[in-house]
């Protein structure tokens, strides 16, 4: 049996798929520990998982978009986070003596700690941001990214330059997407695409299931946990788009109470959170910002999407959904209610979108999810790390 140390960032979308893998490993008899913010991780991981606590403030997200968002993500979050968390991660390595580290691609400190300890480690990709290397056409940007990682390396007291790209372990890369959506990747050679790693979530007993009218089609509208400041205007347009088709479509909009004005009660249900996985089997379409978790959860259930990407890997995911025919892409900032309604009706009415979503669903199921990820991680037991 092995000992696995998980290192991620306090971001919901990052931790959920990794938590499913950690649970799978524990079920198979391995010892698992996480290093990170206990107040953030505990509700996701549940009471039974060991956590080496590193006090951290939650990431509230930034209003930046586009390249400015990439810059603030690295300079304002990933690199400082690496600096602040490295001592705690290395204490956890010393105390827990893991055989393998499972490291979020954006938790650079985990990669550095694995190098220093000479342990084998896997990179886990809960987003497609780094996976498809969207900046490789921009050599100056790619060079800047490598300078960011080199700065974290040097700040950790490591000699010289990082021996390789710290986002990509030389031992194993696990991505929570499938080849039918994102693949096959042309790089790196050690990548395995296991599909979404979904774990059951606590039920939502307060959800008004009898509000759903079986005679109408159902749409879930969700733009993730970090974009609430940007979402209000989008939700207003969503409600305008839905109004004329209320007779045939009911929508559940995930948004804080009171932030979606004038939602017609019988047609649009506004909830601060929703039991997304329980809802999926009853949905006909999902309108989403294109976060990889939401996209994969929808496609794992064969539900087509309308994707309005905001930033980060979302434009990449939106492009892939459109390319494989499982949905349509709209502009988050500018799409007018009429155009949004037409795109949504196209996805609802044209069976080709659902058929494409079903193809992706089947490929995800074949990829194996958390169980496949656990199998690959087990193969790292007994391997040597890279000496540094």
């Amino acid at each position, binding site marked *: 049996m092995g000992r696995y140390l998980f290192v991620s960032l306090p971001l919901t979308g990052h931790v959920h798929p990794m938590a499913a893998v950690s649970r799978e490993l524990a079920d198979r008899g391995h010892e698992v520990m996480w290093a990170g913010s206990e107040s953030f991780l505990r509700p996701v991981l549940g009471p039974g998982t060991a956590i080496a606590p590193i006090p*951290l*403030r939650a990431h509230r997200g930034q209003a930046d978009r586009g*390249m400015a968002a990439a810059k603030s993500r690295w300079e304002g979050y990933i690199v400082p986070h690496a600096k602040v968390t490295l001592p705690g991660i290395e204490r956890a390595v010393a105390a827990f003596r893991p055989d393998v580290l499972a490291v979020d691609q954006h938790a650079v400190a985990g990669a550095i700690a694995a190098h220093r300890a000479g342990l084998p480690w896997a990179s886990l990709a809960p987003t497609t941001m780094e996976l498809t290397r969207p900046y490789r*056409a921009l050599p*100056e*940007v790619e060079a800047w990214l490598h300078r960011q990682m080199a700065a974290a390396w040097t700040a950790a007291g490591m000699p010289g330059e990082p021996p390789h790209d710290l986002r990509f372990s030389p031992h194993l890369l696990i991505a929570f997407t499938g080849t039918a959506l994102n693949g096959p990747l042309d790089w790196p050679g050690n990548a395995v695409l296991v599909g979404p790693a979904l774990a059951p979530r606590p039920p939502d007993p307060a959800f008004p299931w009898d509000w759903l009218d079986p005679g109408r089609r159902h749409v879930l509208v969700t733009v993730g946990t970090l974009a609430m400041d940007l979402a209000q205007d989008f939700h207003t347009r969503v409600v305008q788009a839905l109004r004329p088709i209320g007779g045939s479509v009911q929508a559940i909009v995930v948004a804080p109470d009171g932030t979606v004005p004038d939602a017609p009660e019988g047609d649009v249900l506004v909830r601060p959170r929703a039991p997304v996985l329980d809802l999926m089997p009853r949905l006909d379409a999902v309108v989403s910002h294109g976060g990889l978790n939401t996209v994969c959860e929808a496609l794992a259930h064969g539900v087509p999407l309308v994707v309005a990407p905001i930033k980060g890997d979302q434009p990449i995911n939106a492009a892939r959904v459109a390319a494989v025919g499982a949905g349509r892409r709209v502009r988050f900032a*500018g799409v007018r209610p009429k155009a949004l309604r037409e795109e949504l009706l196209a996805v609802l009415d044209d069976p080709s979108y659902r058929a494409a979503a079903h193809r992706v669903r089947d490929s995800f199921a074949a990829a194996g999810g958390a169980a496949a990820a656990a199998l690959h991680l087990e193969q790292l037991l007994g391997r040597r790390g890279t000496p540094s």
Partner: protein
Amino acid sequence: MEPGIGAGLNTAVERYYDITLDLYEDLWGEHVHHGFWDPGEVPGVNGPDRHAATDRLVRELVEFARLPAKSRVWDVGCGIGGPALHLAGAMGCAVEGVTLSAKQAARANEKARAAGVADRARFHQLDALATGFPDASFDAVWALESLMHLPDRPAFFAEAMRLLRPGGTLAVATWSVRDGELDEAEQDLVRQILQHQVMPDFSSLEEHERQARAAGFTDVATVDWSRAVANSWDPSFAQIRRFEQGRTQMRALARERGVDVLGFFHAGPLMKRGFDTGVITYGALRATRPEPGDAAAAALIRPVADLLRGIVGEDDAWLDSVVPGTRVDGDLLVESHELAAWSAALRETYGDGVDLLGHVCALGVDQLIALTVADVAAYVAARRGSGGPDGR
């Protein structure tokens, strides 16, 4: 005390900083402004000490505004000269600082002499909107946490425009509020902070940005630093408790200096609540006074933007909202596939010498973020008719 306007407010601000000068200097050192921390850093735990954090804020603003060394700088609301001494010292700038508080100006001049930079840093008790400096006197205007005290911010931006030379840089860091409507409880919190801090009102960062553009500035950019500075009000950092040595002493202080001195002690918990709830924000703004424009490039802005309009499926209202300083990345949110289509359309219209995609691919991160529609128009104007087989 009610927040005042005009001369009454100026008198109140003057008085506030006269009577709290030593308190602030004791508390925050020579920098009467927030500190700056990386995410996750906690003062006194794993973060730098107070002086390192306030020094860092100054360096962050220098870097964000791209303030050139050896600039002639107008420092609006100079306090006791902490930031100005950095600009005059390490950066070799020549600084003229203004403050409403005679005591602050005197203390700042004293510190400049002690630092040996009295020839490059001079401080005056002057109203920022009535300094008497001639047009285009400065390479840079520096306003670090002073705009909150100015009731007429559009007039400030106009005055900054007047005093900057063409091509000169405006650097602002300021307290602000969340954009959009505030509910009643939030408004009440803001009202209390304004009263205690002798400020007329707050603008949001977005409002500052609009005011700067309206005054004619270009390359206007803002950054939200709320999370980076919020530690300044953590009890462990603010250490205001240290001063609250009992009611008797507080009463003595109020008797000696007037009751408004107590606003200083109320600020901490209110500001902490403001940052914790996101009502109070904090950010920086940079902007440039434009050079006399290139007419050919200016004439291309609308047609170039119209080609993009067709690609992103927007309407005429969108086109009307595009101004020369509109950023391709942060404002228009142009994605890579749209950029490729725009590049192809520009090549089709203006000849094979125009390769926007190639041009953009060679840019660095900061250049990509700063790229404006005016920059694209200038690139097209320079490349039009070159390199194409038909030489259009």
